C-alpha cells in the first residue's frame, strides 16, 4: 500500500465515560483497525474519558459486553502511548492505582515490559496535541 510510506501522528481523543454511550467502545475499534496502518499513534484520555481505563469493570448486571480487556491488548498492537490528563484524574479523585496497568513489550529493550500509561499535566498534554497531524474525536 502506498499509505505505508506516509507516517502521520494520529491522536485519539477520548473524553467520555464507558457504557453510558458507545463512543468509548467504537473509538477503541478504530484504534485496533488503525494499528494495521503503522502510523504514530497516541491515545489521550481527558475528562470522563479517564473512566474508560478504570480497573475492575464488571458488566454482568447491565447486560453489556465488558470491553475493558481490549485496553490491555493495545500493547500487543504497538499502541503504547497512552496519555492520561492529571487534572481530570484529580478532580475525579482517581490515582494511577485506580487504572488498569496497561503495558507493552519494548522490542528495543529486550522486550522488557513497560507501562503504556503516562499521566500528563495540561501543558504537557497541550504540547503533545500540537504535534499531531490527525486528531480523531468521538
Amino acid at each position: 500500500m502506498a499509505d505505508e510510506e506516509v507516517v502521520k501522528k494520529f491522536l485519539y481523543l477520548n473524553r467520555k465515560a464507558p457504557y453510558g454511550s458507545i463512543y468509548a467502545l467504537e473509538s477503541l475499534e478504530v484504534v485496533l483497525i488503525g494499528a494495521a496502518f503503522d502510523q504514530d499513534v497516541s491515545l489521550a484520555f481527558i475528562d470522563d474519558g479517564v473512566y474508560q481505563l478504570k480497573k475492575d469493570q464488571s458488566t454482568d448486571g447491565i447486560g453489556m459486553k465488558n470491553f475493558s480487556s481490549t485496553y490491555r491488548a493495545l500493547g500487543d498492537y504497538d499502541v503504547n502511548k497512552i496519555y492520561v490528563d492529571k487534572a481530570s484524574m484529580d478532580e475525579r479523585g482517581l490515582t494511577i492505582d485506580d487504572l488498569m496497568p496497561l503495558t507493552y513489550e519494548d522490542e528495543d529493550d529486550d522486550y522488557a515490559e513497560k507501562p503504556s500509561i503516562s499521566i500528563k499535566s495540561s501543558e504537557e498534554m497541550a504540547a503533545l496535541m500540537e504535534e499531531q497531524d490527525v486528531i480523531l474525536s468521538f
Partner: protein
Amino acid sequence: MKFGILVNEGPYQHQASDSAYMFTKAALEKGHEIFRVFFYHDGVNNGTRLTVPPQDDRNIVNRWTELAKEHNLDLVVCIAAAQRRGILDENEAKRQGKDANNIAEGFRISGLGQLIESGIQSDRLVVFGD
C-alpha cells in the same frame, strides 16, 4: 487542500450532519478537494434511503446524495457501526441473511480502514459529532 470529513451523528438528532454538509459544500465552493466523508457511530444513519422527513424542512440524506453526485464525493458508511444499527446494502443483506437492504444512493459501506486512510491521505481531517 484535501479534506477528510468524519460525521459521528445521525440525521436530525444532532446538528453534526448539517454542519458537516455545510462545511463540505463551502470547501468545494472554495475549490478544495473532499477526499472522503466517513460516517461513524450513529452517523451511519445518514446512509439510509428510507427517511421521509417533513416536506418543509431539509432532506439530509438526499442532500448528501445530491452533493455526492454533483462532486463525485466518496460517502462511506462504516460497516461495523452499520451492522450494529441496521444499515445494509444488497451484499450485506445477502451475507447476513436479512430480508431487505436500505442503503441510500451515493453511499457505500466499507471498513474503518477507510477512515484511517482518509486521515493519512487528507491534508486535514475535520470531525463533526456530539
